[in-house]
């Protein structure tokens, strides 16, 4: 087991390194000089040279990457061109907000998906099953940015229950744990929850329906075990797969939060990406990409390590 964990950890190292390379190099795909965003087109030669050396752009790209990585390892992701603030600080507070959103969405989606999927699997062919499969098809087919707009129309314009935009009263971006702030989280999180809901429902339904037909479950029943005890066995055997799917979903939600964050003007990483892309703020784009991808790599790693640990077929 320990050998497996070590091997998996070692395997994550080259992946993480490649992620840093891509996050850094991607911006050089763009045609044109990255300086265009900072310097006016008619800037004199000396100003351009000074700016180039200030941002380190006068060195060859591999050297720039090396310097960037070295500083990144020490927690310094450079300075945002748009705001003039440290990228690391901006990304960290945005990641917090995005995690709040993605975490709640995944929590709601996974919980509901497990309940619905289990019910559908137990009563496969019944009305709950048909309802669940309809819901999961809708969940994976709906453009969630549109669902966000529809929820805004219904719940904030017509009913007035929840605010349509922002992350707190008075446009504040700092999160606090109270109802006044939580109200802002509900609509975007519900919008996002649809994606894991559809996928988890589908997964759990298939697993449970499949398992009910397996010999060991039939044998448990034949031995006279109650429904509850059989359910415990099924839950234990379903858990590893659900954990794997749910873990990846949190990663996908965090990486894909840009669409929902744009709809609800949520001040998270998606908002930063938006700013970075449209203002061609290169350090901000590189830093946000790097942090989001590293989170995804770590989540993958955790899933791979935890999954065998809770699998009842392992270690007996």
């Amino acid at each position, binding site marked *: 087991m320990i050998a497996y964990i070590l091997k998996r950890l070692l395997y994550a190292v080259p992946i*993480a390194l*490649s*992620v840093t390379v891509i996050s850094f190099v991607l911006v050089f795909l763009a*045609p044109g000089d990255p300086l265009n965003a900072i310097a006016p087109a008619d800037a004199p030669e000396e100003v351009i040279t000074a700016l180039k050396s200030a941002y380190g752009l006068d060195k060859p790209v591999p050297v720039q990457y090396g310097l960037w990585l070295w500083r990144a390892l020490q927690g310094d992701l450079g300075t945002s061109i748009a705001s003039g603030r440290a990228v690391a600080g901006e990304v960290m507070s945005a990641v917090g907000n995005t995690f709040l959103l993605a975490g709640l969405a995944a929590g709601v989606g996974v919980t509901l998906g497990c309940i619905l999927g289990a019910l559908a699997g137990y009563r496969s062919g019944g009305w709950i099953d048909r309802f669940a499969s309809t819901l999961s098809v809708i969940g994976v087919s709906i453009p969630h940015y549109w669902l966000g707009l529809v929820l805004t129309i219904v719940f904030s314009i017509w009913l007035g229950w929840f605010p349509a935009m922002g992350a707190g009263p008075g446009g504040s971006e700092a999160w606090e744990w109270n109802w006044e702030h939580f109200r802002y989280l509900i609509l975007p999180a519900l919008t996002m929850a649809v994606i894991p809901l559809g996928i988890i429902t589908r997964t759990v339904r298939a697993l449970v329906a499949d398992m009910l037909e397996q010999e060991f479950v039939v044998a448990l029943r034949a031995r006279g075990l109650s429904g509850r005890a059989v359910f415990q066995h099924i839950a234990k055997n379903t858990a590893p797969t659900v954990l794997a799917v749910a873990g990846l979903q949190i990663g996908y939600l965090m990486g894909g939060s*840009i669409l929902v964050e744009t709809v609800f003007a949520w001040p998270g990483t998606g908002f930063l*990406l938006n700013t970075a892309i449209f203002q061609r703020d290169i350090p901000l784009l590189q830093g946000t990409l790097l942090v989001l991808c590293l989170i995804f790599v770590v989540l993958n790693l955790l899933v791979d390590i935890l999954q065998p640990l809770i699998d009842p077929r392992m270690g007996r």
Partner: protein
Amino acid sequence: MKTYMELAPSAALTEEPPAAPPSRGYWGVVWQQLRRDPMAIAAGSVLLLIVIAAVFAPLLAPADPYKTSMIKRLLPVGSEGFLLGTDELGRDMISRLMYGGRISLLMGVVPVFAAFGIGTFIGILAGYVGGKVNMVIMRVLDVFYAFPSVLLAVAISGALGPGLSNSLLALTLVFVPQVVRVAESVTTQVRQLDYIEAARMSGASAFSIIRVHVLGNVLGPVFVYATGLLSVSMILASGLSFLGLGVKPPEPEWGLMLNTLRSAIYMNPWVAALPGVLIFLTSIAFNLLADSVRSAMDIRR
């Protein structure tokens, strides 16, 4: 279109010369299976309607999709002369939705087709050659798996800059690694089968083995996988436009329309939500069709 009666016997008995590739009969059975599936027919009809409306937009659209009118802004659904109302610049919604389907469908379908071609090629190459080549290709692709797909699409098209061709490129790059994985795993399995070994022994070139034996096995699973991607691609493509990374205004495109109409949700929510209805319909139809194709193609396995 062939009728059911024509399809059944002809594939096996009458038309087919004995040396014809066996795949034709297989696809015939799949087609027949699909025609009996009510869900496939429903989804297919919805898609057909949307495609017809988009392709023949110049003939069918009641108005010019670019013609603005300051006094006719944001008319509600069902207004006289404007069946689905008008947008924030007074342009006819139904015409814009029809024309919008052209770019939206293109943006959704082209990356999947491109990834299908490129991914199958790379996947078969990696799987058939095997060894170090396989390892290098697959490890490089692992890196793409370290990016959540929405983030990868946004990052690439954001780095390249907004525009139709850049978003097509970005989406293709997102799908290629996934198709490669499917193609590679099937090829690796097939490569070790006895009849391919026999073909190699009897002096068949690698090219002809791949063309005759490998491709026939790989295309099915990859095709099923690619049909499943269509729905994802529609949502992602319109999502990129929604963010402003796809086509530029005043071009009609569903995602972009959804974005520019956002300011109208207070005045005229129904009109503002319309483009999303079409993205949703297309994507759900693609999904249901993909499910049907998947179960229709399982018949031989």
